[in-house]
């Protein structure tokens, strides 16, 4: 195998890893942003925000909320 072939294999491998990472990030972003989580029936978001305010904190409205058990 020629030297330039080896160089190309390294570059192609690097690019493929970068593409795979970019696609992985897109997919994980899509999965975490699924609309079902926006308005989960288990959360009363305004109540949570009020409680945080009462506790003296300054909550910022989040785009997504997730229920964590326990």
């Amino acid at each position, binding site marked *: 195998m020629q030297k*330039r*072939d080896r160089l190309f294999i390294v*570059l192609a491998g690097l*690019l*493929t890893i970068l593409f795979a990472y970019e*696609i992985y990030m897109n997919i994980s*972003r*899509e999965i975490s942003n699924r609309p079902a989580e926006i308005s989960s029936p288990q959360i009363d978001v305004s109540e949570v925000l009020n409680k945080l305010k009462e506790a003296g904190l300054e909550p910022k409205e989040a785009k997504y909320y997730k229920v964590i058990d326990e």
Partner: protein
Amino acid sequence: MRKKTIINTIVIATLLLAVGVNIHERWNKTPEITDERVLKTFIPQADSFKKRQGPFLYFEIYSNHRLTGYAFNTKDLVPDAKGYSGPIEVLAAVDTACKITDLKILRSDETPDYSEDIAKPEFLGQFKGKGPGDGFIIGKDIEAVTRATISCAAISRTLDIAVHKMQGLINGTKLSEVKGARHLNLDIYFYITVLIITFLVVVFYLKMSWLRYTGLMISIIYFGFIKANFISMSNLSSIFLWNLPDPASNIAWYVFVISALVLTFLLGAFYCTYMCPFGGLQIFLNKIFRINIEISSRLAGNLRKIKFALLWILAMAALLLNNPNVVNYEPFSTVFLRKGNLIAWTIAGVVLILSLFHYRPFCRYFCAAGAFFEMLTECGRKVLGIDAKKR
């Protein structure tokens, strides 16, 4: 059975399975919820909301036991509202005079590079205070986000129709009398696109290299840097998932995409060789140094398989997740929109530097959309029975 036949069978079977999953998911899709919990975070100053179901779903907003306005999801009022890559849903609040008070993008399938900007208060804030009778024209009354004109126009048109419908409901006007008619918008971009594509077809038949380079330069400047029109995997996925922009106001985009597909089918590799702005950019970069580092044909053949593997993986991802944006990996938008994260800029940098020493590396080895166009060319050749050498 030959190895190639086994691979083809697996590819076709898995794609059919993914199509089945996609159809099933669309069939059983639960509608986006616009309930009180969402509304409370959206309009925190309101005390309560009353759900109303007239000709469409909306909410009455109460503060101190007094009706202060209405809230609605634009999807319920303008179901056909579509941006660049599919439906756009906006949660809107209006006062009792139907003037917009609050806006929030609930859902959009636009490319993240665009959707992040259209959700910002700098753009949405321009609609506050607007109601029926006010101007909603992009470029005149509303300033669009750069290179996201289609998405901005879709939001503006949707809100214009929605406030008219809401006012019609409040005043008891028949919904058929309210604003909403659409006309085909043959704007300047439509004529420029038709002119450039006609010129490129002439260039294809004349087979003169200087004319080809002129055509490619025009493609890079106009389709690339000015309009950011290119066919990526996201675009192809949008087409196959039927997430298409509104034809009435985006006719230039339809001309570009349909010409690319039809001319590639009829003439073979037309899009990749004459229309693609990123392909053109790589060709010009390769001309700068005039040093072409060639690799062995065996390795080139093996590397070419990467783009077909990517095409299969990305088609599966788009079908299973029902979202064309997950397959956005190409450096097109990074280069032409000058937007992207560190990884995207690294990809663009490596590809463009490699183009200086090797002829069209991205097109030859990594472009999944290019792999699709190669298959389309082959399909056209077989259907039309034309010898590849005669094209």
